[in-house]
């Protein structure tokens, strides 16, 4: 072995060691790199069972994104009687996903909860009827039998009808519908409430007895509350307001929000992988149904003009307007109901990792639904 070779080796070794040292030295600057002194365990309460509506969180667990933020996240599914914000306020969980109006009602009832990231920038609620029913605008609901889920899911519909000059108490018949689309399919009701990412797809997975084929979008007429202007904000991440005063919890919140939003960015760019993650986590909904849901959920998040998770104050105000005019809320909530502090910090972290946080280039994919959503 000649001298030159040995010198080269020593040089290479020194170079490698200094690189390693640089990586260690960046400990206190870079968040989300998987360089952890300790790992914090946190729990997240969902509103419902495992489905693509929550894909970002499952993806962040399964693909190790939360681990990069030194978090060990346990996801708890919702059930019929589980109210996520109650679980949060009682201290049973660390974070909860909830629709804004529902959470604000609880907040008015003295639950100290804070919206720390507005993940969905649009509402997914539709009022769906058959194309030949002649229901195309809220005004057309007059005299019809109109289904809704109740339990706080009906506010956009009521406000939308009122904006068209209808009195929901007298101008049409409001009926409580079940959580499937049976009542619309059997003709019991004229217009049915449906989430664009779930129940709407169910109709397209059902067979039209007249043709023997699946129903198509042409068979349906849709009122989208985003267009009517009575849309209310859906899924957001809520944290415990009292605990945010505690530095450790505030730090965990920043990391949790960043990890979650990175999960959602991952699902934007890897929709099919996220569908698989959801199915792996045990959803009984079929593969094509989940693919549809993933696509539509991405449509509710992207593009996020102000950065993913950052509250659009215009939509917040619209949500509050509808909520107060419908007497859902007695008064507008105080300014502590939401903060953009954590989402903005998260967006900065993601941008430092070269992750697109606005998704301006995202386009809706075309999903083919199979019978029964399989």
């Amino acid at each position, binding site marked *: 072995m000649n001298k030159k070779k040995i010198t080269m080796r020593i040089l290479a070794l020194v170079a490698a060691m200094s690189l390693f040292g640089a990586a260690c030295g960046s400990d206190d600057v870079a968040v989300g790199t998987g360089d952890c002194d300790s790992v914090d365990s946190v729990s997240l309460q969902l509103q*419902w*069972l*495992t489905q693509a509506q929550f894909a970002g969180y499952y993806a962040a667990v399964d693909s190790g994104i939360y681990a990069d933020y030194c978090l060990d996240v346990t996801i*708890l*599914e*919702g*059930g*019929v*009687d*589980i*109210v996520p914000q*109650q*679980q949060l306020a*009682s*201290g*049973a*969980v660390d974070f909860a996903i909830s629709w804004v109006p529902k959470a604000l009602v609880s907040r008015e009832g003295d639950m100290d909860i804070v919206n720390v990231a507005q993940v969905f920038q649009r509402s997914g609620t539709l009022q769906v009827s058959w194309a030949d029913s002649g229901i195309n605008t809220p005004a057309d609901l007059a005299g019809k039998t109109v289904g809704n889920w109740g339990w706080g899911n009906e506010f956009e519909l009521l406000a939308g009808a009122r904006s068209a000059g209808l009195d929901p108490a007298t101008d049409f018949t409001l009926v409580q519908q*079940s*959580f*499937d*689309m*049976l009542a619309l*399919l*059997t003709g019991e009701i004229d217009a049915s409430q449906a989430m664009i990412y779930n129940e709407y797809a*169910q*109709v397209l*997975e*059902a067979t039209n007895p007249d043709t023997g084929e699946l129903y198509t979008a042409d068979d349906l007429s849709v009122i989208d509350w985003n267009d009517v202007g009575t849309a209310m904000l859906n899924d957001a991440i809520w944290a415990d307001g009292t605990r945010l005063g505690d530095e450790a919890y505030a730090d965990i919140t920043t990391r949790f929000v960043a990890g979650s939003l990175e999960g959602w960015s991952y699902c934007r760019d890897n929709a099919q992988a996220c569908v698989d993650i959801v*199915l*792996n*986590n*045990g*959803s*009984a*909904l079929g*593969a094509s149904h989940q693919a549809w849901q993933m696509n539509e959920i991405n449509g509710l998040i992207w593009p996020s003009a102000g950065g993913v998770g950052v509250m659009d104050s215009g939509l917040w105000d619209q949500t509050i307007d509808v909520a107060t005019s419908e007497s859902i809320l007695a008064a507008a909530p105080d300014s502590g109901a939401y903060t953009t502090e954590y989402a903005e910090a998260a967006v900065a972290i993601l941008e430092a990792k070269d992750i697109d946080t606005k998704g301006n280039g995202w386009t809706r994919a075309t999903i083919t639904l199979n*019978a*029964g*959503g399989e």
Partner: protein
Amino acid sequence: MINKRLRMVLTVVVALVVVVALWEGYKWMGQQTDDHWPGTNFGLPTATNDMIMPHASDILGELTVDIRDGRNTLPMYVFLLKKAWFTFQEAAIGFTLGLAIGMGLAVLMARWKVAEKGLLPWINVSQTIPLIALAPLVVTWGRQQSMPDLVSISLISTYLTFFPVAVSGLRGLQSPDADHVELMRSYAAPWRTTLFKLRLPASRPYLFPALKIAGTLSIVGAIVGEISIGTKTGLGRAILEYAQRYAVAPERLYASVIGSAFLGLTVFGLISLTERWVMRRTREVVS
């Protein structure tokens, strides 16, 4: 013995055939008369189309269809058996706790009249609290104690099961004739001896019917608990998911209901077997 077994199998088969025949017959009739009672304008209580009443063959066929369960693909009946096994465990914990608490209360009330007067009304009141109110309380409390949701669900099951045990247990413990109690007293037997030698054996005919009710209730409690809490496993979860998908796959909901009926019958059978075993083993004690 063989004859007896054969007869039992035949009974089950005949019962199944009758149920299927009734189902299909009603459906056929409804299809002929456009969902009216024949020759009248009176509507049938339920519609008979394939969405509301799928063909029995479709429902049974659904049991063998492959479905995806997380990372695995397996036949529906295996999937349901897996879910049923989990629900069974929850129910078994609930049943055992309910039995212990119920019998404890029954003995307490049999021993002291004042305990009966004080406790019995509350035991009755306890069953008027709707599960829908109780379930979130139990699960929130359980999570605050860092208990797994399985324990919370078992506690809901316990809540349903302790009641028939306590009430029938008390009735059973009080059932011995006054003569027998007098006799024990004449021997100067302590209360404990009277309990084990006289009262407990005498309570068996009252207790076992109550245990059969409690067994099925424990399954109901576990399933209701699963639905209300939304745990990852169990038959309740399967029912909840398929109920949501009823409009596009009604057979699946029926299949999962068959699964829970099967589990209920299994538990009922297990308790009946235990009853026969206990009765045979302890016959000498009382007769």
